[in-house]
């Protein structure tokens, strides 16, 4: 078959083509207020010719650097340069467009920006896949990216964007929602771990218990989230009304408690299932040897099965964490708080910025959780990857 050559990266070529195409699409939109539909603005009419040219050149050069295959570092550099270019264009475009557009006018990134952003992120991921950085390098990179993001947001360079204006008008609510969201996601994970881990260990030793538990848990997992949250409501309102003192500690049909329990139920399968799979992953010959040398079942668990199964068990925790960060959005529908509150309010009011204010942090949170957990999973791998 025809290879695109030893020097040209095929994905890089694809990214360049897609990216240049996206440059022709509207880069930002400007609208008269936060509800009405906006007007697309092409990248070359964002601001003064000089300012925009710098950004366009940075993006184009960044995309071009992604094409040669030989130096992955150069491709990574290209992605970073391109992203910086995008940021520069937003910083130049937002104030320029708002200038004289009226008190309630809003500017936001449009389809062109989002496409370029996606393409450049993919370029970065592709270059990183070539470089295969170790866990510490990835942790460093993640920290650097998050710090850069925090710096940009804190500096106010993007404060003119409509999402951030939406944020500015709900600062306190946002903080509450963030805390509530994290509380739901991590709290339910902790509860699921406390229940699920011992259950998994028990299931590991007993096939009959395993045969009963895992199918029940996977059926629980199958129930659509909205239905599960909904089904919690009658149960919890009944508990709230009949158990004395339950209402005093916040147990009622809607709110935090039913959302929390629904998330715990969803989390049990990955925790129990991966604990069972992890403990069973030790080589059979090693288990036979452990038995033969006189380890008790407890010693076998602690010295052999657990350390060898830890990566798989932690992968279960990763699945739960990412899943719960997403599902916690649904809590917004039953008064459980979290970023879902913004998402569903935004959908009700057809206020795009409000939807984004809820959805974007959720996505970032889920991605960061996934990357951090992947790093942890790599760190607990019991043997260094050695090929004899």
């Amino acid at each position, binding site marked *: 078959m025809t290879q695109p050559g030893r020097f040209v990266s095929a994905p890089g070529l694809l990214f360049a083509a897609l990216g240049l195409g996206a440059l022709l699409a509207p880069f930002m939109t400007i609208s008269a207020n936060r509800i009405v539909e906006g007007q697309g603005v092409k990248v070359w009419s964002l601001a003064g010719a000089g300012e925009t040219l710098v950004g366009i050149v940075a993006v184009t050069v960044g995309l071009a650097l992604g094409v040669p295959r030989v130096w992955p570092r150069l491709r990574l550099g290209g992605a970073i340069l391109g992203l910086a270019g995008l940021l520069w264009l937003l910083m130049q475009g937002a104030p320029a467009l708002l200038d004289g557009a009226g008190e309630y006018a809003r500017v936001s990134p449009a389809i062109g920006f989002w496409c370029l952003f996606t393409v450049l992120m993919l370029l970065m991921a592709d270059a990183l896949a070539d470089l295969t950085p170790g866990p510490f390098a990835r942790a460093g990179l993640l920290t650097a990216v998050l710090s850069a993001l925090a710096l940009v947001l804190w500096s106010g360079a993007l404060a003119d964007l409509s999402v951030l204006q939406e944020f500015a008008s709900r600062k306190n609510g946002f903080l509450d929602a963030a805390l509530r969201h994290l509380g739901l996601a991590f709290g339910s994970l902790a509860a699921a771990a406390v229940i699920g881990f011992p259950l998994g260990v028990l299931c590991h030793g007993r096939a009959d218990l395993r045969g009963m538990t895992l199918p029940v848990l996977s059926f629980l997992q199958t129930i659509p989230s909205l239905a599960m949250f909904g089904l919690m409501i009658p149960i919890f309102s009944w508990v709230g009304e009949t158990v004395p003192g339950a209402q005093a500690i916040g147990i009622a049909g809607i709110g935090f408690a039913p959302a929390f329990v629904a998330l715990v139920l969803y989390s049990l399968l990955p925790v129990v299932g991966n604990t069972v799979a992890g403990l069973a992953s030790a*080589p059979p*010959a*090693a*288990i*036979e*040897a*452990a*038995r*033969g*040398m*006189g*380890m*008790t079942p407890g*010693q076998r668990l602690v*010295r*052999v099965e657990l*350390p*060898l199964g830890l990566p798989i068990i932690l992968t279960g925790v990763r699945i739960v964490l990412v899943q719960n960060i997403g599902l916690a959005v649904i809590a917004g529908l039953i008064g459980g708080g979290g970023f879902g509150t913004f998402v569903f309010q935004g959908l009700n009011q057809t206020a795009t910025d409000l939807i984004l204010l809820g959805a974007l942090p959720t996505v970032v949170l889920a991605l960061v959780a996934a990357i951090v957990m992947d790093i942890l999973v790599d760190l607990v791998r*019991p*043997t*260094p990857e*050695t*090929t*004899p």
Partner: protein
Amino acid sequence: MIEIDRITKTYNGVRAVDSVTMTVETGTITVIVGTSGSGKTTLLRMINRLEEPSSGEVRINGESTLAVKPHILRRRIGYAIQGHGLFPHHTVARNIAAVPELLNWSADKIRARVDELLTLFSMEPATFRDRYPAALSGGQQQRVGVARALASRPDLLLMDEPFGALDPVIRTRAQEDLRRIQQQLGSTIMLVTHDMEEAMRLGDRVAVMDAGRLVQHGTPAEIITRPATDFVASMVGEVERPLRLLSLVPVSDLVEAGTAEGEALQVGASLRDALSACLWTGRSAVPVEQDGRRVGRVTFDAIRARARVHP
């Protein structure tokens, strides 16, 4: 001394091991040989109670194995298996130290023992101590597996097809190493295999199992010359019988005064080696050497005569 007394294992009414009785002398190697499904592995696993006997008992130095808890018993019995079963997440040193750790030996004592065993198995401690099993060759992994089984100076070492996963060249070396180390340490070993060649090469005594029963238990020479059943005879192989027998006798038994042409054999070599040398080079006698000095010769006629004398 290990006494196996009418030991039986029944699975769903089928007797996998049927009333086996035998005695293993201290400091010897007993090889249990049989086809798959003959019950040889089950017999071995009942000795350290990885399988509980349905009836009968095993006594080690007079004490019944049923008198102690199984895991305590197993710490006194070494166990090496096919495919080594090393812990992939522990270094070589920690693998070897596994049983001493269970027995709460002091760290110094463990370290000394690990180095001693690595040296015994011709593995430089400084080089190998901190490696992980994945970074070892198949032969090295197997040696560490045996070293681990010997670490706590067990009363008895059980080996279940320990060389089954090795290629022929490495297997022969591993067998020689085992012989050497067993003689050096005076260990008592019970080893299971399906390979009669291996049984003959390693065993002081060979026990042949068929369909759960012990059909013959004796020296290799007895097994070859006086097979108790047709099954034993077929395991030995009619065609190979004389060669197997000759391989049990050292050249030193037949050395006579006189000289011969060509390359010499060492006194430790077997008559089979001598026969092979005669046939290959077309000689009727081969010189014999000890410590680099010619001590006499062994003749083709003497070998032929010896092969006809069945003890």
